[in-house]
């Protein structure tokens, strides 16, 4: 499994496009790459624009009047945003840890060829890949039977396991961990739980990291679970907060008003437009900084997923 993104293609070694074609291709990619990044830069620049300039002349590619008032406001009016940040962080951390444990343990069990229930559990994992109950009955079960409405677990549990990840783990364990290692541990009297936690997990860091990263990003970026299950504003994640800010500009002001500040004064003075974009930037920033470093893991994860075992 190559995790390198640099490549030594046959093409590169033996034949090359002409200089003109190369420049032309480079131009195309420069344009494409900019098109992918510029929209985010625009949001950043709006978040640094003064509310006045937005009100008068609208959004711009570059701020007309530079101002940090949106961020100052976000810090000052912190409770709501801080709480949302806290919910997002909690959900991401707990969800990732739980998801990794549930996924790898199932993957390990399925990778043991002598296990008696192997066939049965394989079906348990496999069937949901082709058939599901659909949104309505899932919603009904989760709210009515499991009582997940307005609970932080509604943001964590439904996303914890995916059959695809379980199969990636199973394939990884099967192909990289020598049977002899497990057998010798068994002979030494180690229980399967102990083998899993103190032998398998530590030597399987590549797949743990891959699955963990996938889970981490999907928890951080999730908004759908909030939209479905969360009505209580105190349990809003950053995504849900931005979502409600996008549909209701006054959400922030209302919240502030309930804290004792005059509603009218706040609506008049708060930086609504730029605060919105500031929250978007708070969401994007960790992702934008993290993913270039983890890109190679993602690519290798994609490759593990593409290679069937």
């Amino acid at each position: 499994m190559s995790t390198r993104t640099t490549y030594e293609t046959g093409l590169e070694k033996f034949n090359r496009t002409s200089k003109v074609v190369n420049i032309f291709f480079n131009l195309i990619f420069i344009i494409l790459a900019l098109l992918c990044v510029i929209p985010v830069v625009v949001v950043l620049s709006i978040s640094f624009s003064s509310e006045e300039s937005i009100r008068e002349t609208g959004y711009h590619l570059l701020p007309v009047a530079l101002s940090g008032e949106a961020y100052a406001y976000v810090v000052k009016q912190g409770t709501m945003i801080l709480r949302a940040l806290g919910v997002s962080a909690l959900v991401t951390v707990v969800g990732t840890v739980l998801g990794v444990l549930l996924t790898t343990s199932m993957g390990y069990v399925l990778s043991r060829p002598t296990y008696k229930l192997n066939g049965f559990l394989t079906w348990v994992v496999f069937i949901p890949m082709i058939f599901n109950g659909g949104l309505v009955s899932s919603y009904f079960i989760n709210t009515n039977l499991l009582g997940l409405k307005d609970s932080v677990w509604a943001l964590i549990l439904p996303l914890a396991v995916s059959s695809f990840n379980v199969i990636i783990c199973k394939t990884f364990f099967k192909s990289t961990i020598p049977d002899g290692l497990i057998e010798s541990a068994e002979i030494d009297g180690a229980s399967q739980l102990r083998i899993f936690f103190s032998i398998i997990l530590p030597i399987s860091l590549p797949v743990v990291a891959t699955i963990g990263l996938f889970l981490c990003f999907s928890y951080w970026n999730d908004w759908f679970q909030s939209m479905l299950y969360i009505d209580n504003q105190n349990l809003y994640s950053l995504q849900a907060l931005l979502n409600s800010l996008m549909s209701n500009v006054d959400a922030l002001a209302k919240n502030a008003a309930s804290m004792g500040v005059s509603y009218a004064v706040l609506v008049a003075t708060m930086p609504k437009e730029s605060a919105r974009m500031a929250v978007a930037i708070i969401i994007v920033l960790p992702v934008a900084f993290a993913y270039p470093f983890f890109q190679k893991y993602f690519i290798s994860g994609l490759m593990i997923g593409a290679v069937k075992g």
Partner: protein
Amino acid sequence: MRSTAEQKNKRKRLRFQWHKQDTELTLLALPTTIWYILFCFLPMFGIIIAFKNFRISGGFLSNVFNSPWVGFKNFEFLFKSNDAWIIIRNTIGYNIIFIILGIVLPVLFAIMIGLLHNRKASKVYQTMMFLPYFLSWVVVSAVGWAFLSFDKGILNQMLVNMGGDPVNWYMEPSYWPYFLILLNVWKGLGYGMVIYLATITSLDSTYYEAAVIDGASIWQQTRYITLPMLKLVIVMLFILAVGRIFYTDFGLFYQVTRDSNSLFNVATTIDVLVYKQLKSATLGMAASAAFVQSVLGCATILIANWIVRKVDPDSAMM
């Protein structure tokens, strides 16, 4: 003779004997199995909601047992409305376009980026183009608002500066098929490119070596080596995408359009309709639409997998 038969018997018995380690492995698998039962298998039985006149009130069991059977009434209701055909047209129509563009563009750009001389530059391009893939739809919706907002949006300002009239984009359905397709390509291009590029870079360089000795030009190499080698991956991803043809990216169609009512005809897919009806508590119709989606989705996945097995037995799921 007898002893080998006995040995065989013994081995057979051993294989079916329950060991201590089986108990331990079962314990290890138990939490995940419970998760599967709660979040995957229970909802499968919840599908009977589609055949009932359902209201969420009171406890779980009383809900299930006390709501009256209506048979296929919900389905009749769904398919008699005009909405059914609009959402099926949208769901399948957009998916066909997404599947075609989702293959042609990433393959094209993956081949092109593989031909670049400067590796460092190509890595920078890849990283930059991968960014949209990591943005949530809520953030994309905010990005869209920055460009398309009626009074402040950048697009309208550019129009006004060029002497045109501002357009109320969120009220104009005619533009949205293009916006939705464009955004889908924007978000997925970097990801798709990486998958194909990974395949291209893993190709054995001796093919190209031989081709160069035979005097093949770079275009001939692409045409006769790179593309045929990509064919299998392309076919695989194509069939997988076809298997998901009744499912759409809810975020794209709901968040980015900001659930604007004027865009109903061009931006409502099965997922969006199910969600909206669920939220407006018209459960029967939502459940029947979700049921149709699940069953047809299951059928297409099975058919797609059957085709994969014909094309390449090793890649089939089952």
